[in-house]
């Protein structure tokens, strides 16, 4: 009846829950496969079947182990996490050690499709010489797909000579065509060694800018937010609630929209900002065309986007400082300046520190501002096409895997993601250490 204590209890509960989940998923998949032959059901039938098994299963297990019912509260979140977060992560980790890419997708290359003239057990006779038709040299060891109307078979070539090739298995049907498979392979650490071998062109400068960006954007926003917070915290100021409400507009607008607007405003020749500068007698600034100015542009736009949050946070923290402290200071003859340095700033440190640190962690992977504002550009000498002047790690990974410059190098992209994960965890560990956030939870 009582919950088994300690590690043993935890593991027992976890294995029961996971067992339940795996069992029901397994039943779902099996049921789907069984149904497939007759009904061609949609894939999500697996989920429905799994749910149908899981609910009675949970009730049954709950009868057997009454102490387990407390754990059921975790089930919805846990099962979702497993399917839609952990499974993709696991797959990505696996991909990081393969050379999976758009061209090496594990599917037959139809441009090598060649007609099979004669078939004799595992021996196929092709229309043309094997090496030419399948474009492989040597052909032994390559994976091919043999197919005919309604049939498909993957096999490996054992040997190839002239127009004939021998497969490692016998196709159970009359083969019509054969094509080479562009299989992706397990390449071990090659993706990582590629990243390191190009480190001076991508990893190091990108990482350096990533840290500088996250650090300076947080400091800049915090400084600005602090000043505004102090100004607006002045209770004698009229209309302060009005200002407060009006100034957070850039937080309230969807960033995806406003950043794209900024791209237009910062255009060298036609953007409103350079026009404004022109009227002020300043020559146009290549905001998005110069590697260094683009960094400034990103910091400024991120300031526009982010200062309301810092302002609000500062105001929240300031409201926790009791007025009596200031009155006491006044009695002691301190001027406002001394009150600021002696009371306000030291007392702000504790509530603001976690906000600053989490803001750093957020900006460290702030993909949208970089991708939408500069797309990582402009070009910079001696860099890879996927890792430009303002690229941060996450946009570099994205461009490697999903953009034209990167040519769908999914394996390499996954490797960079893994790197980002490790770095983020490291940063967060420092973060938690400093704030002691984890100790509080215990």
């Amino acid at each position: 009846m009582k919950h088994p204590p300690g590690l043993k209890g935890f593991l027992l509960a976890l294995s029961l829950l996971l067992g339940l989940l795996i069992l029901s998923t397994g039943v779902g998949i099996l049921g789907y496969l069984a149904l497939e032959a007759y009904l061609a059901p949609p894939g999500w039938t697996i989920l429905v079947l799994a749910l149908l098994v899981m609910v009675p299963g949970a009730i049954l297990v709950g009868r057997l182990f009454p102490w387990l019912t407390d754990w059921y509260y975790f089930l919805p979140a846990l099962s979702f996490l497993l399917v839609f977060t952990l499974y993709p992560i696991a797959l990505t980790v696996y991909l990081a050690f393969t050379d999976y890419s758009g061209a090496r997708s594990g599917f037959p290359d139809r441009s090598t499709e060649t007609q099979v003239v004669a078939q004799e057990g595992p021996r196929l006779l092709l229309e043309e010489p094997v090496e030419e038709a399948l474009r492989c040299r040597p052909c032994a060891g390559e994976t091919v797909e043999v197919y005919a109307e309604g049939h498909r078979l993957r096999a490996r070539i054992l040997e190839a000579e002239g127009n004939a090739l021998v497969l490692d298995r016998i196709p159970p049907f009359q083969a019509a065509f054969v094509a080479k498979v562009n299989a992706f392979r397990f390449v071990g650490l090659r993706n990582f060694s590629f990243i390191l071998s190009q480190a001076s062109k991508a990893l190091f400068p990108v990482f350096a800018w990533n840290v500088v960006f996250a650090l300076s954007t947080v400091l800049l926003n915090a400084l600005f937010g602090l000043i505004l917070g102090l100004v607006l915290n002045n209770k004698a100021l009229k209309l302060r609630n009005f200002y407060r409400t009006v100034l957070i507009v850039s937080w309230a607008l969807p960033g995806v929209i406003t950043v794209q607007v900024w791209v237009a405003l910062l255009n060298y020749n036609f953007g409103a900002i350079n026009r404004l500068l022109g009227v002020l007698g300043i020559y146009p600034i290549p905001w998005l065309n110069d590697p260094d100015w683009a960094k400034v542009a990103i910091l400024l736009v991120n300031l526009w986007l982010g200062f309301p949050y810092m302002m609000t946070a500062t105001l929240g923290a300031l409201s926790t400082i009791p007025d009596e402290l200031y009155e006491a200071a006044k009695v002691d003859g301190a001027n406002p300046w001394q009150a600021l340095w002696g009371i306000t700033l030291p007392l702000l440190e504790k509530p603001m520190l976690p906000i600053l640190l989490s803001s750093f962690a957020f900006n460290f992977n702030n993909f949208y501002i970089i991708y939408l504002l500069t797309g990582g550009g402009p070009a910079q000498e001696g860099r890879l096409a996927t890792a430009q002047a303002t690229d941060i790690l996450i946009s570099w990974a994205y461009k490697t895997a999903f953009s034209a410059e990167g040519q769908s190098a999914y394996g390499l992209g996954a490797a960079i993601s893994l790197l980002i994960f490790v770095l983020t965890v490291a940063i967060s560990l420092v973060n938690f250490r400093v704030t002691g956030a984890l100790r509080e939870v215990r």
Partner: protein
Amino acid sequence: MRRLLAFLLVGLALYGVYWFALNRLFDAGSYRKQVAFGSVFVPYGWVYALGLLLGLVLLLLLYSLIHTALTNRIQGRKRSPWPLFWQGVTHLFLWVLILLVYYPVVQVVAASFDPTNNLFSFRRPDTGFLLLDAKVIPYVPEPSLENYAKLVEGVVLYPYQVGLLLLGGLALLGVALIGLLRRLLTPEDWMDFWQGRLLLLLALAVFALALTLSPRQFTGQGTEAKFLLWVRNTFLISGLTGLLAVLLTATAGYAFARFRHLPGRYPMLLFLIFVQMFPGFLALVAIYYLLSRLDLLNTFTGLVLAYSGGIISFGTWVYKGYLESISPSLEEAAMVDGATKWQVFTKILLPLSAPMFVFIFLLQFVGTYSEFVLANLVLTGVESWNVGVGLRSFTTGQFQTKWGIFAAASVLGSLPILLLFYGFQQYFVSGYTAGAVKE
């Protein structure tokens, strides 16, 4: 140690600024002294601008001196003019700031009414007013609703949908009215009651409208004529994923907050944090593969499920924190009376948790509202896009630049989020600062 770190940081920052100034700001070789096309160059314009500001400050000084002198004379008191002056300078500073902050907004709103459909316009207007000619102040000689008209072109609404729209509009009006009354009069109970009811009505009307609209009702030719369809898709997707987020995080948050006796609670919490740190949207290929296996690609369900993974950790943490701030005495009393944990959770805690659920819902709604990376992967075809993908297509489609329409769509597309944010401001502010996480 801490002081050393601060000094180091400040030093580095100063060095960065110094380097930049040396190499970019004052290095004549690194930029071209060339006036941009179509812009007006006023030599030493900044001197005039500074002079203007200084003049305003002097005016303020003058005003505060005279004002104080007069009131002192009338009331026979001796007050210093400085507080008034500083107050005035603060207002001036804040208004300049507001101008700067709203500048992009003004530009976009102006562009949305500009039928020439170009945020980069080429002709220089000839009005004789410097700021208009320089197009620092947007110049819209013939404002028109053409861009907006293009967004709603060919949209056919059935009568009952118009009715729903009107109902929603009335509810919104009512909510706004009560909000106003709240400010003006002392808040009363009926206000809370009716505001809640009206909000619910609004949400239901919008949801019903979103459900009953079908792609067939959007008969306009261009891609942009599907804009309202994208808004409808987004409401469905983001609304559902918001609801799902609440459902998924509620029980787990409760268990983490109250079942302190469970072994392994702490490692599980840690696990949640660290799982969240994986750059989730880089697992795109994997998510694509998973959804295609489940036959959920190009369905809203698939996208909703994919989005939901991202909020679980954070939502659970936030809700757990909220519950821990509520004293458990009430629950303990109920337990003594023989209530089960489930009853305690549903009868006592759920009603108390409404603000936090609203926050989690809003967080997920706003967060996915204009998301475009995952949406673009999962959803194929103009008719199933959400707002984010659609807006992105205006600026990146193959050789397409429809700035006027982009501006109009931006204005319309921002409105729901703007309303939500300002309507639920206190939830956002308290939620974010309590969770100490932005987005």
